[in-house]
């Protein structure tokens, strides 16, 4: 690719022409072309889908549901209901939209019997007049949810790479239309690597972030991740784990909190507030009930706007 400068003039000219041709090819391949805003809007309208989460109040918080092409993050203290909301999303997409879901579990919190409970509750809610066996549709819904247990960040990266390979090869038979990837606790695999003096943890975290965003954008998937909260040492307040660098990765962040003050009051009511969103005002809050059957709202929730 690097032509040597030739002694005689005729070869010098052709070398320069070769350089110019090469430059033209490089520009054509790698430079960014401006796109028309209207074209972009049309493209987004046709490729983006909005997926219901299975809980109307959460859908309201997220501006009618999960958007494909974006990364949504749920964060909360232990026991605040992150895994329950993830299970509810998986159940709703699989049962309601009949699409495949990939669930990457890194904490061991995935309980299939609880998922089955949620499917049963959702099936009862929606279709009272359904024909024949709802039990069969629930089993089919269970089959559409693929669960991979990844307890290490490299395993998670290979699982995501495998998803990318499968989607780009268009192997429709086994996966079907995959639209949602739920990762329960991305911080469980990254937190052990962060901190200290080495920056390797940050590099791996950014690699994972890049994979997630690429999956979301290129294949129009809705990616849901859960994050932990840690206590800020100076102020004593709770803040999301994984630091500032990760906070730029998800486009929407929802904080889940328990309604009871401490563990002495046992309650199934949770409140979800919007911490970051490209579409809604932050500070919106709704109530959820991660009760026996389903993630549903206990009473009409009034979103409180304000900062």
């Amino acid at each position, binding site marked *: 690719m690097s032509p040597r400068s030739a002694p005689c003039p005729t070869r010098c000219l052709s070398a320069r022409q070769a350089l110019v041709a090469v430059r033209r090819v490089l520009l054509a391949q790698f430079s960014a072309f401006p796109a028309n805003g209207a074209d972009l809007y049309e493209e987004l309208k046709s490729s983006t889908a909005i997926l219901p989460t299975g809980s109307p109040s959460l859908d309201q918080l997220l501006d009618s549901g999960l958007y494909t092409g974006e990364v949504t993050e749920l964060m909360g203290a232990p026991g605040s209901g992150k895994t329950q909301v993830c299970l509810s999303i998986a159940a709703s997409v699989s049962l309601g939209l009949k699409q495949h879901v990939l669930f990457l579990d*890194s904490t061991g919190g995935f309980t299939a019997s*609880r998922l089955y409970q949620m499917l049963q509750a959702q099936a009862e809610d929606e279709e009272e007049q359904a024909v024949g066996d709802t039990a069969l549709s629930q089993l089919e819904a269970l*089959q559409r949810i*693929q669960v991979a247990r990844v307890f290490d960040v490299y395993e998670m990266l*290979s699982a995501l790479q495998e998803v990318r390979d499968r989607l780009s090869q268009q192997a429709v038979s086994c996966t079907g239309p995959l639209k949602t990837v739920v990762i329960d*606790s991305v911080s469980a695999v990254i937190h052990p690597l962060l901190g200290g003096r080495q920056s390797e943890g940050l590099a791996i975290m950014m690699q994972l972030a890049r*994979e997630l965003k690429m999956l979301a954008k290129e294949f129009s998937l809705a990616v849901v991740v859960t994050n*932990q909260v840690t206590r800020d040492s100076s102020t004593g307040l709770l803040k999301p784990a994984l630091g500032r660098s990760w906070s730029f990765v998800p486009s929407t962040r929802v904080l889940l909190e328990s309604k009871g003050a401490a563990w002495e009051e046992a309650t199934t009511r949770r409140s979800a507030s919007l911490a970051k969103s490209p579409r809604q005002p932050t500070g919106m809050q709704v109530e959820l009930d991660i009760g026996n059957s389903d993630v549903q709202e206990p009473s009409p929730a009034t979103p409180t706007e304000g900062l």
Partner: protein
Amino acid sequence: MQRAVGSLPLGPALRARLAAAGFQTAQELLDTGPCGLSREIGISKEEALEALQVVRQECSGDAARTAGGAGTTRKCTALELLEEEQAQGFIITFCSALDNILGGGVQLTKITEVCGAPGVGKTQLCMQLAVDVQIPECFGGVCGEAVFIDTEGSFMVDRVADIAAACVQHCRLIAEAHQEEDHQKALETFSLESILSHIYYFRCRDYIELLAQVYLLPDFLSEHSKVRLVVIDGIAFPFRHDFEDLSLRTRLLNGLAQQLIIIANDHKSAVVLTNQMTTRIGQSQSTLVPALGESWGHAATVRLIFHWDKSQRLATLYKSPSQKESTIPYTITPHGFRDVQPPAVTQNTESTEMNPRKRPRREEEK
């Protein structure tokens, strides 16, 4: 093989050199070969060979997964998981109220954490579970062995002997009530000596020994494949005193948690940890919260908090993926961990009549 070089498990210095030399994907590395690689980035041939072996292993693992081979990956549909879960047993605690709120008992393949103030009964529960995991399957147990890692030195062998004797007595009474062949056969092997000989006891004195023990545990478990319970009594103790660097402590604990969940999953065993309580001083009042910080709270899948209410011991299920939060009373008798008795009924008749959990399970097996 379009795996980006940044996502491969190589050392950071090596990764930096590869990035500087312009390598982007794993395929380019494999095409270059060890000699070319050592020339390009200036490392020795042995290091290049090692790096390429790692890359090849990762990529062949990927290829096996794409082709649909199962291998060692943990991937399945939710339906298969549901069937697996329904076939799995629980480790009962002999306190039926506690078993009920846990959904049947301590679940295998999950980490359960028991927090409580000193003297409330955490070690008693651990010793009870170490005996209960060995109950034969015909009596409703999982027939496994137990690993007990002790950091506080609170394991009393004579107390375990008492608990084991009570358990054997209980099973003998059930076998007499239902005269069955396999019950008698199981009773022959289920005796005090066999129970005590199947509890593997490790004593760790500081956090380094504890970490080493947990990281060496997979090798031990692959030799003793019948182990179904790993108890770490006192995970807070070595990490709480004499630890200056708190961020190091968080990192070590998180790494420990991931290692434990891998053990629980691969060997289908339950992991039970005990934690201490600490006081959080808020604006107006102070509350008792589990120790080791916020991030440790995410490590356990199921969290039980034991506390006192005047003179009654209570257990609260605080965190569980499938059960609701609730509180029940329990008591500790000379025979071990038990339900709170209604005062009129004596111990013996209670053990033959009012144990409804055991009956249905055996009837199903018929």
